[in-house]
């Protein structure tokens, strides 16, 4: 590489600045000059304008937390949600234990049993949020799209257990209509159909 190329082709320009005063008298004169010219208020003009707008014209820029909350991206990784099947309302989790297995903080546990319909029932499911690092692996691995992260980021409470049980995370049955899917962590990739090889059927 040539010398020239490394220098580049930008046009640098030197700004003409007053020389920095070196004597005490010179310094004093500069301070005096800057204060009397009220340069400070030139800068504060913007501030005063915005203050006026916020206070009197209803153009506030900050959020009045906790009275107000910012909308949060659907891909935010906060407290988990356990989803339900849209058609039947049954919880989606099949108790396969993959999330439990993959969890790096080893904070998921579940109790399962053989139920009366010969199915695997998830009797209880819990995440220890004292240990969870919100890495999202559990959501990624879940074959049923049953566990996802939700937007619930307020995790202060008297008892951690108050939001870490199955029923706390499960979509309330009356809110089933509001349950949302989104393309993100753990969701089916948009081109899933292209990637799948069809199994022949004999019917």
């Amino acid at each position, binding site marked *: 590489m040539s010398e020239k190329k490394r220098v580049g082709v930008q046009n640098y320009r030197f700004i003409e600045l007053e020389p920095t005063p070196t004597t005490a008298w010179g310094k004093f004169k500069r301070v005096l000059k800057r204060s009397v010219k009220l340069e400070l208020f030139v800068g504060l003009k913007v501030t005063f304008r915005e203050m006026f707008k916020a206070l009197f014209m209803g153009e506030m820029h900050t959020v009045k937390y906790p009275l107000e909350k910012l909308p949060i991206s659907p891909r935010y990784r906060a407290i988990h949600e356990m989803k339900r099947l849209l058609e039947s309302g049954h919880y989606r989790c*099949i*108790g*396969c*234990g*993959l999330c*439990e*297995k993959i969890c790096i903080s080893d904070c998921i*546990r*579940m*109790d*399962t*049993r*053989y139920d009366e319909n*010969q*199915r*695997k*029932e998830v009797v*209880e499911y*819990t995440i220890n949020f004292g240990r969870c690092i919100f890495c999202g692996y559990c959501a990624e691995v879940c*074959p*049923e799209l049953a566990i996802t992260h939700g937007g619930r980021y307020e995790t202060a409470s008297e008892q951690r257990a108050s939001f870490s049980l199955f029923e706390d995370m499960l979509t309330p049955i009356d809110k089933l209509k509001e349950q949302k899917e989104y393309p993100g962590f753990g969701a089916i990739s948009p081109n899933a159909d292209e990637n799948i*090889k069809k*199994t*022949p*059927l*004999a*019917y």
Partner: protein
Amino acid sequence: MSKEITITIDGIECKAKEGEYILNIARANGIFIPAICYLTRCSPTLACRLCLVEADGKRVYACNAKAKDGMNIVTQTEEILEERRAIMEVYDVNHPLQCGVCDQHGECELQNYTLEMEVDEQHYAIADTKRETKNWSSVLHYDAGLCIVCERCVTVCKDMIGDSALKTGPRGGDKLDKSYKETMPKDAYAMWNKLQKSIIVPSNGTEYTNCSDCGECTAVCPVGALTERDFIYKANPWELREVPSACAHCSSACHLYYETRFTSIDDPSEKIFRIKNEFHYQSLCGAGRFGYDYENRNVKKDPNALKRAVEAIKKAKTIRFNSMITNEEALMLQTLKEKFGIKLVNKEVKPFQNFLKVYGKAKGQMLYSNSFKDMSSSDFIVSVGAKLRNDNPAARYLFNNIQKINKGAGFYFHPVGDTLVPTFGKSVSVFNHKVGDEEYVMLLLLDLFADKEKLPSEIKEKLASFKEKRVKKVKEKVMKEVVEKVVDKESGEEKEVKKKVPSFEEKEVEYEANLLVEKLGGDVENFNEEFEKALKKKEDFALIVGEDFYFHPKAANLAKLVALFEETTDFKVAFIPPKSNALGVALICDLDENEEGFVVGYNEPGDFKISALGDGDFDIPAMNQQEGTTTNMNKRVVPLNAALDYEGYELNDIMNELGLGKNLTIDWTEALPVEKGYQVAKFDDLPNYFANDMSEHRGYVLANMPVDKEEVIIEEFSESKLEGQIAYRCNPQRQFNDFTDKAHQIFEPFALYVSPEKAKELGEFVKVEFENGEGLELPVEVDERLSGDIVEVPDFKAEMDVYSLFGKNRYAQVKITKV
């Protein structure tokens, strides 16, 4: 024996024995050949065909092709890989997509091989058939939808366990599309063709297996089709922590893994969820597989109880214990005896110890010569004095396996009728002799197998007195010439044709009758021919001696007869120690006959009870909660590991209080008596695994120490004095002790076990009165596989003190009255 040969597998030279299967040679040498249906120690079924390899350019199945010297084997060719991939694709056809909930997922051979063969696409299809889920017994759950019909369950049940409770049945599936025959790899097609026709069903034609409930079929099932009912959907395999140990229930001390995990979300304490075993090398019984949760729960250190226990030991005149004890604990008890002169009473072991002593003096060695493991190559096996089905599962599996795999023959001598044993093989002869005739059993064996030259003269004379010339009628086949009229179809002419037809004529022949055979309940007329047939091509003989011989009025004489038999034949001989660690106790402890004074019970009743059952005055850990060793029937000292936590005191703590203790209980392991054949080995150095070449690396084998030999003088034989109703001390199949009884999956009650025909006579509840006037009130349970009049009284509950009722005999004369 077999010749040493060398074969080459994928360029690697392997030493082997002539006639070994290629698959086993490959495994022993660490070479991988995919295989699903083959089970080591069982016969190959060729159900999966995955083990296809090329031997000298020819396609063979590694699991049933025998190696020949100089063979060159290639395990992968393009064609073979194509076959294997097609086979795995076929297995995946209509296989439910339910790995997520399946109990096998994570350790499923179908999952593993599907990945191994890189199946990412399906080329085959057929309409699915509805296949129902069934509960075959109290422990077995079969999901036909998941079954790949590898027949491993069928094979193990037939070749190892001996119940033959399973078979393949019709699936009712569609026929394969004709076009597949041309387009598919041919082994995959053949495999599919068979698969599409079958599922597994109980072989007795009912919905239930009515079997021994050993659960071995669930262990061998490569997929989630056959599972233990109790374990279904409870935990995923990868969550479970594997603790290698040994089963504590019978003297086989089979290798097993406890699989533990936290109990539930609410209860973080460790719990055993199931038992797994190395089914290629050792099979478990129902007690081992399901009798695991007998731990002493929620025990904390109680210093007051410790003080009381120390006081009790100081006061004790007798310690009464049984065989559910480690070698280390037994050594501690022996130390107490040596230091304080406390008597040690063990009713299960004492007669066995006496028997070993007499046998030892006659034979010049402390222990029986062989192990049951040595016998696995035998082709003629004789069982005396053992209720094979109940006494020891490993001995029973061996007897059965020899019939099935070594094309062997067997003699089974026992007074109690059993309908299962004769089904082990065509060449099994059963002798239901009279109670007390055991000496004559040995005499017959001497007659049949001993080198007569070596026998003492009085035995020879005795033998001669049992020979008699008799005449029997035989039917003989003769060909007779007859003339028949035949009408020729074309010409309509009648012709006379001469023909030879067989006919049977009765003839009388003289033969030498062996009256011993008659005395012992055999078929004396045909015995000579049958025996000759059974002996054909047999070269490896084995004798199993069971508990009836130790608990016998003439036990000493029997011990001498066994020693004499061993001296004069080339039989391998091994004894079944009566209960769990009976051999260890017999070697380590110097036992006394009778108890006296203040009795400390160790898992037994007593004035002060030290117990691992949670019902005593002082708690000790159960066998699944402590480290230690046990001495098994193969004369091996094998390690036990702690599967569960235990926070209380142990016997060693009492010993420490008395100034006799060691730092840890396992520090006693290296102190086990060297003069009895034990080694100075640290517990932590004891290995506990099987290697791929089937060799056993568990603990160490006891040395068979020499004993001063004494001259053998066989006493006069005696006849049994028992008359009328006879009771036999014998446990139901899955019960051995209080600990199996505590386990939640073992339900066999403490009851009178009788044959179906006897049950009709007895009703539901009876009182059994013994000669000393004492009695038991027991419900009547039918054991479908018992036959005859003798009833069985179990001894698994220590508090019932059944040993005192029977004394030093396994049989007793009783009076049974309906209640």
